[in-house]
């Protein structure tokens, strides 16, 4: 395929990128709003445009399980899901990461029932943030395409060997058509070499995968995963630069992106597509002379504590826009930001927003800045 610019949905951008990464097995179960991804991949498979086998599993739990099986047997694979589908996979999520399989999964973010609601927020993937998967959130369809390529490269680094969730906002990105630069297969092959695992199910060299770990070994499994997460922090920076060199696009430092922060006094922290809205709000406020900026966090796991401390060191206060709330506590990202900035002088306020698809408008974001300036408490942006 030659490089070309096309206007496609975020879901199709994911599918196009997956195709170029040449997975061999595609276990898929449809759920709104991720459904366009398996649909597009099915077209590729059934038209012979990709040399992969679709496994039309009977549930998301089985999709994650077949993904596990494919990696156990040593081939690159992929799946996509959302919302209750991810919740249904929950049991397999830490099993895949503990097995250190470098799987890649797209999550078209949608809230979790109940009440049942098909629209966007981050409660599905944020609820999985403790389970050993790297989580990268994207702002645009182009970033979705690019992040899939980077995700495989990252997951398959030997010092990382962890699965990656590429999270794109359901509907806002999955179903919205944007111009996307599709790269040449040759360049993608150069960026992402063939997958050559060291350990897999092999009749000539039998190994046991998924044994029972007693209390005398269990902690070490998790400690190694945590060490790998710390390795991923470094590798994400490197891969971001390698990607820039190859394709001439870049997303901050790979972990976070600083927007208008140089002279800012107040900033908001965003994750995913709401960053676009925040960019507009900041542009308008700056025209009024307000010193405001945005910190877009791309990597929620591993969480970029050091980068965040550096980015916020000259700020008076920051507001975190959270599309998920840990009921009885704070927003998920707010908790991480507060923890990272503990001991610094930066004030942090949390704002719960966008649950179940409630619009987060430019006006609402301007109100957040107003709240920060006045030194008021964070609140629910209803």
């Amino acid at each position, binding site marked *: 395929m030659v490089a070309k610019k096309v206007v496609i949905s975020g879901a199709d951008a994911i599918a196009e990128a997956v195709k170029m990464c040449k997975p*061999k097995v595609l276990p898929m179960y449809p759920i709104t709003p991720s459904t366009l991804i398996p649909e597009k991949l099915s077209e590729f498979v059934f038209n012979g445009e990709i040399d992969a086998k679709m496994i039309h599993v009977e549930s998301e*739990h089985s999709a994650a399980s*077949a*993904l596990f*099986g494919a*990696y156990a047997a040593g081939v690159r694979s992929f799946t996509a899901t959302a919302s209750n589908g991810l919740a249904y996979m929950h*049991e397999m999520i830490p099993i895949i990461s503990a097995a250190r399989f470098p799987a890649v999964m797209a999550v078209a973010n949608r809230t979790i029932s109940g009440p049942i609601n098909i629209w966007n927020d981050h409660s599905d993937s944020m609820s999985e943030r403790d389970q050993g998967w790297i989580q990268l959130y994207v702002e645009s369809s182009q970033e979705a395409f690019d992040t899939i390529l980077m995700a495989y490269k990252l997951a398959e680094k030997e010092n990382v060997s962890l699965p990656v969730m590429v999270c794109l906002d359901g509907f806002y990105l999955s179903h919205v058509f944007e111009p996307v630069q599709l790269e040449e297969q040759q360049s993608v092959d150069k960026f992402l070499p063939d997958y050559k695992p060291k350990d897999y199910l092999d*009749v000539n060299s039998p*190994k*046991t995968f998924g044994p029972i770990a007693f209390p005398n070994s269990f902690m070490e499994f998790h400690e190694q995963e945590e060490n790998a997460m710390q390795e991923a922090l470094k590798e994400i920076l490197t891969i971001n630069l390698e990607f820039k060199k190859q394709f001439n696009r870049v997303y901050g430092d790979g972990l976070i992106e600083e927007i208008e922060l140089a002279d800012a006094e107040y900033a908001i922290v965003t994750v995913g597509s709401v960053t676009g809205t925040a960019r507009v709000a900041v542009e308008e406020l700056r025209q009024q002379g307000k010193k405001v900026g945005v910190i877009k966090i791309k990597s929620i796991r591993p969480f970029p504590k050091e980068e965040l401390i550096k980015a916020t060191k000259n700020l008076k206060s920051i507001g975190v826009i959270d599309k998920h709330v840990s009921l009885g506590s704070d927003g998920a990202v707010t908790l991480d930001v507060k923890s990272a900035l503990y001991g610094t002088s930066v004030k942090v306020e949390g704002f719960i927003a966008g649950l179940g698809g409630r619009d987060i408008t430019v006006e609402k974001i301007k109100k957040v800045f107003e709240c920060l300036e006045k030194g008021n408490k964070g609140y629910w942006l209803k």
Partner: protein
Amino acid sequence: MAIMGLNEDEYFASGHRACAGCAEALAIRHILKAAGKNTIVAHATGCMEVVSTPYPETAWKLPWVHAAFQNVSAVASGVREALNAKGQMDTNVIAFGGDGASFDIGFASLSGALERGHKFLYVATDNEAYMNTGIQRSGATFPYANTTTSPAGKVIHGKENPKKPLPFIVAAHGIEYVASTSVTNLFDLKTKVEKALKVNGPSFIHVMVSCVPGWKIEPSQSIEILRKSIECGIFVPYEIEKGILKLNQPLKERKPVDDYLKSQGRFKHVTPQDIQKIQAYVDERYNFLIENNGKKLFDNLYR
């Protein structure tokens, strides 16, 4: 020394932590002997995974993988298709699950994998309860059995429901080969495994295995008790090949169920009235099988 054609090689090593007299461990050992070296095993959570893989030890001399309880068929699907992608179509994939994993929690995963037609053998090792978690009733538990969740109570005398006819439900998917066997006859087991692995699609073997602590028997009784179950028609070895039912050893004379029940602690509470009901249940099932012996009961959809 090779005994009557049984493979001398061992793939399930001694030294595992199964109970003395464990029929399930014996079944696995002999199924693997029949399958041979070119085999990958996927296992559901259960006794066998616990006793055979205490990290960093393993009893498995074949590549072996375990993920969770209800999804071994889906894991095996992924393994199978990955092997095919690598051109290893001739490598056997065997999925093992106990009765909990097969009859109950993994039923949807099994059905999905059968429908999709992957080439793999599913072996359901059935000891009629959740033995790994301490003898709780499953969909495979025999009526009136005393388990920790269907106790021999003053009002309710053990398990209240019939045994789910899983092999027939599997056969209704239209797959080419389904068999039911036990470890009482290792040649029957071997023949059935060999037949199942020749199928170019899914195949299924139900293996009846006794459980020393679960059935409340002595380790020395674990084979004898299975023989008794065959003699009274409670367990019936059969094949359903291309939809046609074939009983492998129809009984000339069928014994009453009394001796089988009285040999096991899990049935020691049953009253004479209970035994009558159990006998009627067994008669009904056995007669159904005899009446349908040799008949085509199911379509053969996956050729």
